[in-house]
């Protein structure tokens, strides 16, 4: 099907330039709709990019972006003068990879489950319930975590109290999960998965809906079980979607959103919870060192770009140019 639609009209093929122009003329109403988004991207995303130069300047309000003094690589070097910069990078990458590896497959699995299930009412209920956490703001989310895991007055605290009073648990100390270094990453990642997994299924469910029923019918006649059909029909169909999503996600490897980490931080788990973005917030923005913050942000973006290009390259290699994003 898709090959056929890509066939080129022989009348137009003689002149590639003319072909493109004619194509454009045919669908100019559609192209017109692109103007607004294009304008938006130029105005708000490409336009402000000239400000990146303050990463190499010592920004002062009086002198403005163009007039501030050049300082070379000082702002970048300053980051490596922070005595815990290695820890920052390590924590950022650890959280990021953990989040990617644990969080990426789960919406796919859930989407497959929902797709396979025959009980349509149950599916709708499950979908709705699993979407709800997506609408909770980060602040409220961390508030809920703090409440639930409070070792004395929280849900966890009440369970422990019950266990203690029935002499099932001997320990008498109030162990605080929220301030445990070892638990921080798990708490961060799994609460994130709980919050995002329902919403994450939407795209895959849509992709699964596009699977042609004929394929399933044919496979059923040939005696394929439901599991085999998932393995050989459903997954291969959504594989391009999965690959694109994976490439996009890998472009965020250096950026762990600062709000949630910052809110979950405390003096006891700081060795695991200080990441680049919280550091930039504390030392760049809060202290008004805009140049310094920009330099670190730019560094992150550069690494992210390299990641996205690498992953895209690998995906192209593995799939003969089918699964890549570009």
């Amino acid at each position: 099907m898709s090959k056929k639609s890509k066939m080129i009209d022989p009348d137009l093929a003689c002149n590639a330039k003319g072909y493109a122009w004619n194509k454009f003329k045919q669908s100019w109403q559609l192209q017109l709709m692109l103007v607004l988004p294009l304008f938006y991207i130029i105005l708000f995303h490409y336009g402000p990019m000239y400000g990146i130069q303050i990463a190499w300047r010592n920004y002062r309000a009086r002198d403005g972006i163009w007039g501030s003094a050049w300082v070379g690589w000082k702002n970048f070097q300053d980051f490596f003068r922070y005595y815990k910069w290695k820890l920052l990078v390590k924590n950022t990458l650890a959280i990021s990879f953990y989040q990617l590896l644990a969080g990426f497959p789960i919406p796919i699995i859930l989407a497959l489950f929902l797709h396979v299930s025959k009980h349509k009412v149950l599916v709708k209920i499950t979908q709705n319930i699993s979407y709800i956490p997506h609408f909770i703001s980060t602040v409220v989310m961390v508030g809920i975590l703090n409440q639930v895991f409070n070792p004395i007055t929280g849900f966890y605290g009440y369970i422990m109290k019950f266990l203690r009073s029935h002499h099932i648990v001997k320990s008498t100390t109030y162990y605080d999960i929220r301030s445990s270094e070892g638990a921080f990453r798990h708490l961060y990642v799994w609460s994130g998965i709980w919050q995002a997994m329902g919403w994450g299924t939407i795209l895959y469910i849509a992709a699964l809906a596009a699977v042609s029923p004929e394929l399933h019918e044919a496979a059923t006649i040939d005696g394929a079980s439901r599991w085999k059909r998932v393995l050989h029909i459903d997954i291969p169909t959504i594989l391009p979607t999965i690959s694109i999503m994976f490439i996009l996600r890998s472009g965020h490897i250096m950026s762990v959103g600062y709000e949630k980490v910052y809110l979950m931080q405390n003096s006891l788990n700081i060795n695991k919870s200080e990441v680049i973005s919280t550091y930039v917030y504390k030392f760049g923005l809060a202290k008004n060192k805009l140049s310094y913050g920009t330099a670190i942000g730019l560094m992150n973006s550069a690494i992210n770009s390299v990641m996205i290009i690498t992953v895209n390259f690998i995906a192209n290699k593995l799939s003969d140019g089918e699964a890549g994003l570009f």
Partner: protein
Amino acid sequence: MKRIVALLMCVALMVCLIAGCGGSKVKKGDGSTFKIGLCTNALIEDYDTNAFTKWIEEQSGYNVEFQFFSTQSSEAKSQVATMIAAGEPLPDIIWGVDFGREVYTEYGDDGYFLDLKEYFDDKDGVAKAFWDRFDILPEYDQEKALRNMVNPASGAMYVLPTLQYSEIDVMDYMMCINKEWLDKLGLSMPTNLDELYNVLVAFRDRDPNGNGLKDEIPMIGNSGLSGDVVNYLINQFVYYNDAKFFNVENGKLTTPFTSNEYREGLKYANKLVSEGLLSPLSMTTGGTTLRGYICPPTDASGNINKSDMIVGCFFGHPTIVVEPNNPAAYSYVAMNYWNRCVINDNLSDYQVFITEDCENPDGAWNFLMNFYTEEAANRLRYGEKGVDWDDADENTTSFIGYKAQIKVMNQVLAQQNNSIWGSIHGTVMYYAENEVTQIENVSEWQDHLNKQFTALHDNYFGAAEKYNPKELLSAVVYTTEEHEQYDMTISNCKAHINNSRTSFVTGTLNPNKDSDWNEYLSKLNELGLSTWQSLAQKAYDRQK
């Protein structure tokens, strides 16, 4: 001869009177208008018809116009930065935007904010109102304010300070102990560190709440106001103010955080944590969360189950960490202080400026001088006189037993209102609310709390007087150049000290092991402690 002397004295007296009279009153304004840029507060209905606006206009003889910045100070900061970057004219006066020292010094050096040194220097003339009000502050606070007001590099003064003084807010730790448990176990109130240890062990082992479970928390602090239990323990061994880091002895800065006494304090805290006497929750629990630990939930008739009480002794501001009207409060009484008591800094800020776009800076200064009176301070804090508050009745006292100065009839701060500007800037406030407000119709519960409060306050300052070093470090202010060059070194050192302190207390590092302790010290030296110390010494000496 005598007559001439008498005559001369009369003349002198009259001259003094006239001068005094003329000087203490701020010159009446000429009706010109000033535009004030301020951070809005969502609780204020209308700044133009506001009671304080009306009062200050009438009092000063000037008119006021507003330019509103965001409710968020950080947002307001970038609004001003944007205006400056775009070359837009600034309002005549910026009132209450927290730029931070580095930024406002930059704006001042660049000429956006006026240097007010000339005005400040005219102590008996245009600045008399300010200096008269300034004089009521204790010497230590005056020194700190002066150091903060002056730009150390050039001597310029860009800012009109907001100086608040309170004896409650400066207490670093307030501690209360469960008297009922003490009585039940037949123990007496601890009067030194060893006795405190024994009491805590008894709380842990002898089931004072009688529910048959070892669920007691012998001691807990909080991360909010007056809850720093670790600093309390360290100060049993050496004076250490964790906001200042340095101590000062004969004009020389010393480093308590490298001393053996400091290590002893960490060892002691570490011992308490490892034996389950001090809860590590102290370092992460906020004041209001601590409420839930101290006060068990009440039933329908407002009673609690005493066997649910788990806290033996707590650190924190009693009105914050105790749930209002919870009967658990009756069990706790104020504990003694028997050693050094850290005096924290008062809530002062430096956020009022006259800008270069002001056409009549003399008038703006004169207008702002009207804020430096007791009445202006009270009106900014408590609202309209005669409506929201009034002078206190004769012979009444406040919570901590001081002579009451005002009686509050209608709380306006943090309420929807149209009588204040929502924040307090550019004035001198003396004493916090509970130190000056007349008390009437106090409930039994409140009375109990007030008594503990008074005891805590009196003991604290008694002990501070007796055990604290005579010389205290007020403030160390760096120049912009020093700041730019050494900020990374200084913040590295500070972060290392604070992180290591937590690690030593919770047991990630062991203060009893020489290798851990030496590594802490050598890392500190590696990060540039000596650079920081000599820089701070230089800054401290500069503004003697």
